[in-house]
């Protein structure tokens, strides 16, 4: 049940679900501010997150306690990092995606 709740953390984000997942994956490599996240996500996933989408997803992740601010002097470049709950939600989401990928590959192999 706890695992399903962790997966549901992101699916409840509506149109921000994909952006939220990409942000969590980006932050799994270490704390980043908004611009660094968009650059990283574009490099690894080829998706350029718009600033409105980025901050819509960041606000939701922060409100859910999945990410938190790292104290910084420059208010225009505030870094974020994963919280324990964020790491748990990301692991659950990635496990669910892996299981779905294996299922699809298995079905394709038998097709």
């Amino acid at each position, binding site marked *: 049940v706890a695992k399903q709740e962790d997966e549901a953390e992101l699916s409840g984000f509506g149109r921000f679900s994909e952006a939220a997942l990409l942000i969590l994956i980006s932050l799994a490599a270490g704390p980043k*501010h908004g611009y660094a996240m968009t650059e990283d996500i574009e490099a690894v996933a080829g998706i350029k997150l718009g600033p409105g989408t980025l901050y819509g997803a960041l606000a939701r992740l922060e409100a859910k306690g999945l990410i938190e601010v790292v104290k910084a002097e420059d208010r225009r470049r505030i870094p974020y990092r994963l*919280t324990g709950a964020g790491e748990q939600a990301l692991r659950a989401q990635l496990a669910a995606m892996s299981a779905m990928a294996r299922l699809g590959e298995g079905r394709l192999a038998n097709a």
Partner: protein
Amino acid sequence: MPEPARSPTRALLLALYPRDWRARYGAELEGLLAERRLSPAIVFDLLGGALDARLGPRLQPTDNHGANDMNLRHWKTCAASVPQPTVRQSLFGAGLIILATLALTTVLGLLKQKFGPVPAVSALRDSLFTLVIALSCTTMYMHQRSWRAQAVFAIFVMTVTYLIFLAAESI
């Protein structure tokens, strides 16, 4: 590091976000925008983000997952700066919606009489309900802003809404 001057377009786009949202994320968003060319896709994305920030769920960091003191302090300040509408403001909003409905239906009747069922008139007929809803959203969600800001936002949203209906009518 000195902050670069804000361009009027960037400032206008940021102004579309609610005051409490800007207090929390405004400086960051401004910093991000300073690093990018303002393409139509980014403008569209920001308009969507501003609508979401105004009409979407009100977001506050939970304090049971380690949100730090700075965040909580920010949000408490923001929450205190957004007063609930007074009875007078609510009554004014309700009156405005009734008056807008009356005015728009009167204009619609006059235009129908004069021009008949041309696309511009049909679009007004079809969009009337949505226009009044757009106006009511402004009075509900922007009551803490100046009259000028409310008027600009209402006119902008109503114009865009009408143009969408007009485009659909002209296809």
